[in-house]
């Protein structure tokens, strides 16, 4: 399983804070995982298509070609605004 987390407005727009998906051969990178989730429905497709979307793999901000595998924690969120 891949544990997926959503934060801030991404979490609100999707209506989910976390989901789990089966690790499958078609998902080898963060970009492929995003594409897989985006195919769920129109709303998910729109939200996850944002060019501002960031991804963290195992709690480190990553590039979209980062490898994703079984047991990983992958988080999607907007640019950060703390401080």
């Amino acid at each position, binding site marked *: 399983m891949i544990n997926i987390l959503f*934060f801030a*407005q991404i979490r609100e727009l999707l209506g989910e804070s976390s989901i789990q998906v089966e690790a499958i051969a078609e998902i080898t990178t963060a970009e492929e995982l995003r594409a897989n989730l985006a195919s769920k429905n129109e709303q998910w497709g729109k939200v996850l298509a944002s060019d501002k979307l960031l991804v*963290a793999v195992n709690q480190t901000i990553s590039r979209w070609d980062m490898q994703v595998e079984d047991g990983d924690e992958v988080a999607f969120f907007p640019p*950060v605004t*703390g*401080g």
Partner: protein
Amino acid sequence: MPANVSKVLVQTQDFSVADEYALIADDYRDGAVVTFVGKVRDFNYGGMVTDLTLEHYPGMTEEVLSQIIVEARERWSLNKVTIIHRVGTMALGDQIVFIGVTSAHRKAAFSAGEFLIDFLKTKAPFWKLESGEAGKNWLDAKDADEQAAKMWDIP
């Protein structure tokens, strides 16, 4: 000689600047103590603000803040470094973030303090949700913050 001390806290409760100051200011080797406090202000681009909610990514946040301190220590000779960041809902005037840095000389403490807040604003997974006249509004990341962080890039 005692090891340099770093402290990172992410918490809902408020902090005491006096207590945090006392904790970092007790070393006779330091000639400089620089502190910064970020607060909830009553306006933003969307108009009047009534309260602010901070969300974060538990686990990753603490790791990123610790890493930012490691980077600051690589650039300047620092003794004590404290970062406290609050999460949850805060009222106008409430304290959001505390940064404290001590060093032998003021320049390192000033520079490191500014570096820490600039980096925190662009690297640490916190998100601000404002409530105000126009309802609730997630704040957009500001290009100015990104530029401020880039200013510290080593050419």
